[in-house]
């Protein structure tokens, strides 16, 4: 058996279109999950026991159950009690919730890694906490979290392949369809893997460039 990519070449546009679905599902859930993650982090860092308890519980449950099971719960579980989301919404909701728990932890780690002395210096200058946070803690905090956030983005992007189990037409399910059409299994999946790889590498590269341009201190 020899490798032959000629057969699958015509399908490249279909694959790229599916790749784009994977990317935008990731972008949306990364952004929405990021915003939600900020609130989860704020709840965890707050003075209120109830909020701390809630966000801790949320983070633990999400980080200790498989994303696939979370997705089944949303798509089939909720569907079985009459709450129906289509595959796209199910994947978006699942990935957003999942991402929010991880990013909340990333924010917590990044902010608490900002030296306590910087906050004290801001306070000692007479700045109220919100100013100290905004002008003193935020930028070093963002610098701390950027590598972990990039990593989380890539992980989320790769996780978006679970959309295939509920027939969302993202890259992996498209690869499965093309495989059954062409029977060029090795070729199809190696090209698919290459697309995932190149996209992830581009994201990592972009992040490193951003870091270099944005944080010159």
């Amino acid at each position: 058996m020899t490798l032959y990519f000629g057969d699958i070449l015509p399908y490249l546009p279909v694959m790229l279109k599916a790749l784009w679905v994977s990317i935008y599902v990731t972008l949306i859930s990364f952004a929405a999950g990021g915003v939600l993650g900020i609130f989860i982090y704020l709840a965890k860092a707050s003075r209120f026991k109830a909020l701390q308890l809630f966000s801790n519980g949320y983070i633990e449950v999400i980080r200790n159950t498989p994303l696939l099971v979370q997705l089944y719960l949303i798509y089939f579980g909720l569907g079985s009690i009459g709450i129906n989301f289509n595959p796209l919404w199910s994947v978006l909701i699942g990935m957003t919730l999942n991402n929010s728990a991880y990013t909340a932890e990333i924010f917590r780690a990044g902010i608490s890694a900002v030296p306590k002395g910087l906050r004290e210096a801001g306070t000692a200058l007479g700045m109220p906490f919100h100013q100290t946070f905004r002008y003193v803690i935020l930028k070093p905090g963002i610098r701390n979290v950027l590598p972990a956030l990039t990593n989380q983005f890539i992980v989320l992007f790769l996780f978006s392949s679970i959309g295939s189990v509920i027939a969302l037409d993202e890259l992996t399910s498209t690869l499965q369809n093309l495989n059954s059409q062409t029977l060029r299994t090795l070729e199809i999946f190696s090209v698919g893997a290459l697309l995932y790889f190149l996209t992830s590498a581009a994201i990592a590269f972009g992040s490193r460039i951003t870091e270099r341009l944005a944080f010159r201190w």
Partner: protein
Amino acid sequence: MIITVEGLHKSFGKLEVLKGIDCEVAEGEVLCVIGPSGSGKSTFLRCLNFLESFREGQVTISGHNLTGAKTNLNAVRRDVGMVFQSFNVFPHMKVIDNIMLAPMKVGKVSRVDAHARGMVLLEKVGLTSKADVYPSTLSGGQMQRVAIARALAMEPTVMLFDEPTSALDPETVGDVLDVMKKLAEEGMTMVVVTHEMGFAREVADRVLFMDAGVIVEEGTPAQIFESPQHVRTQTFLSKLL
């Protein structure tokens, strides 16, 4: 008196770190606080601007009663500059921006005025040429002088120093001490926690020896260094020689 401390107690959990401190500082006075490690010097200093909260005792500083019901702590802190052992310059801001930040955000000074004032202060600490660099390119001594300029930019009436030279390479200590000396000569009220006995001897109006959360002895530098009365003071000073 610009600072009055009465019956100040401070505990961290079960550990009582300050066990009743009474002390006064007059306007323009330079008070040096010395004592063994862990005796509560930093805690005492940090109570003076309520960076460390306390439940028992009274502190009045620059006309504010720290524990008063209506006291705005941020307003107090604007009048009280603080310099830390670890500099705590803001790494993401150029030197001049470090100095301009609080006047602009807290003092509502215009950018132009804040910049002008910042340059005057940089000249005072001998760092005019470093205005537009990031702190990461500076030596420890230079960073500490930026921190001093940053605190002075709020035009405080009192300056608190917590071992400002302890984290420095020996060759940069002198520049920082010179800046502090100059400040003292200009009449700034200063409370300085220090291990630099030479500085205390030369610049302090009064030296205060703390041990185990109490003020053991206080007096002029001559009294404390030439003829300490308490055994604990004598022991501490003899170890330094």
